[in-house]
């Protein structure tokens, strides 16, 4: 009701000193699994944040982005995957994603941003791969929506078609190397992780995505 009243009720100074936010920023997070937990502040994704994963085509960006969903989905959060036209469902299961709580919109055609916005209202994590270079306007609107709804957006992009706005958390794959035996065993990804504030300078890490069991782990 207060939201519509022309003047908001002013609180007395002594009351103002005692009130606190309904929820602390720390509780408003979505959990992250290994190895990412050790690489980001608080070991979780802050609600309202936009995470950008950038990788040259075919070099592990999709696996990395999907692995960000795993811990949240096993903890009961819903996730959606928009614009990944042929998702490797078995690989997702190996990464630890609980498929019972994942919605897919494989081919949103022109409406990728609208579909993602629709899903942001209902799920906690939305992974989106724009089919072409994402527009400034669409990205801005989507990120505003994410902040407003308190969900997490994971945008998957390529160096050729980068996400047009700065992200709260930025994973950039710089190198991918396969370890092979008689078969493909594991892939070592060199990932540059950066973000806002204390993360501004960024740091480089080598992670294994996927390992011999198809999961993500620290080296």
């Amino acid at each position: 009701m207060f939201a519509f009243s022309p003047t908001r009720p002013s609180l007395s100074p002594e009351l103002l000193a005692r009130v606190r936010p309904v929820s602390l920023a720390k509780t408003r997070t979505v959990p992250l699994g290994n190895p990412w937990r050790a690489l980001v502040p608080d070991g979780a994704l802050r609600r309202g944040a936009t995470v950008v994963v950038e990788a040259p085509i075919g070099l592990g960006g999709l696996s990395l982005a999907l692995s960000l969903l795993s811990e949240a989905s096993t903890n009961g959060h819903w996730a959606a995957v928009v614009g990944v036209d042929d998702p490797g469902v078995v690989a997702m299961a190996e990464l630890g994603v609980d498929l019972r709580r994942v919605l897919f919109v494989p081919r949103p055609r022109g409406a990728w941003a609208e579909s993602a916005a629709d899903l942001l209202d209902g799920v906690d994590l939305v992974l989106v791969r724009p089919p072409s270079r994402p527009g400034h306007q669409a990205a801005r609107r989507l990120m505003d929506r994410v902040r407003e709804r308190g969900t997490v957006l994971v945008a998957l992009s390529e160096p050729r078609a980068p996400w047009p706005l700065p992200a709260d958390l930025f994973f950039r794959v710089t190198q991918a190397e396969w370890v092979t035996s008689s078969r493909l065993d594991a892939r070592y990804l060199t990932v540059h992780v950066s973000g806002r504030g204390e993360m501004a300078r960024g740091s480089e890490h080598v992670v294994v995505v996927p390992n011999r069991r198809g999961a993500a782990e620290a080296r």
Partner: protein
Amino acid sequence: MEQLLAVWVDDLAIEQPDGSTLRHTIALSDALEAMCPFTEVVRRGLFVMPLRGPSRFFGGDDAVLAMVRQCVLDVVGVEVKLGVAEGLFCAELAAHREVLVPRGASDAFRRAQPLEVLGRKDLATTCQRLGLHTLGAFADLEPARVAERFNQHALVLHRVARGELTELESQRDRRLARRLAQLRGESDLFEEQQGFFGQRGAEDDRAEAAARRVRHRLGAEAIVVANLHGGRGPEDRATLVPWGSPATVVRDHAPWPGRLAAPSPATTLSHPVPLQLRDEANRPVVLSARGVLSAAPTAVIFSSPLRREIVWFAGPWPLVERWWARHRRRAHVQMVLATGEALLVVAESSRWWLVGIYD
């Protein structure tokens, strides 16, 4: 579309207070499953199985019909109504009318039916006033015209009448399958699928509302969920089904010899892309009948200008399935390209297909 044999047992349609209906239903479905493992209990009194396989095995359609008739007589002790047609909707109608609709004639059969078979009295009366008496006449209406006059539900019925959907929602009793499983003591099998719609929390409701909005925006097939099941390659082990369609029970306790080990490709192509493998002398690499490559592949050609060097490959790992049919011979090959990309390709019918990308 597949020809289905619908088995309609009048006596099992209404549940008796003494529980004999469910006991008979279980006994009959077990007996029918012995004839065909793909037998399904659709709802009380209605069973359905694909006809082609049993027909080949038992020596013709008539032999299968006679066996099923005898089977129902032995197990339940009553006469049965049998019908054969394509799709569940037509198959059930065929059973009620006790006809065998030949392959390809199901369309005409469906179009000749009266409108009452859709089970909506108001729709039938209104259409009759408009001079539409058969499903065919109703089906010929433009979907937009139907949407103007009737509600959303009628549009679904219209799709059934047009043959775009093969069954009515009201045909299936989803709770029955669960009760039968509980009676059999297999209820734990159903726990897996309960994650979706059982034990719902506020998150599930929110997710469902969001999914509904996307479906409204992009159409029924646009939003999908994943089912995992048995299979050898990653491309066989998963299906994406439209969100909201009945979930299937996952029963994968079978070993799959030759199953490709983890890690699996993060992209699994639903429509494999043809490609060519070349050896050092630029000759095509082929898979022999014994599952051996003619030479080590050194390059992959997607389409004529797009050629990539192969720096490492492994395989072929033959998929020994239906070994009696030579053309089903398949083999997986993993490769890493000079660009750093890793691919999973499969040889089938002497051609190569790209089925997965480790991206």
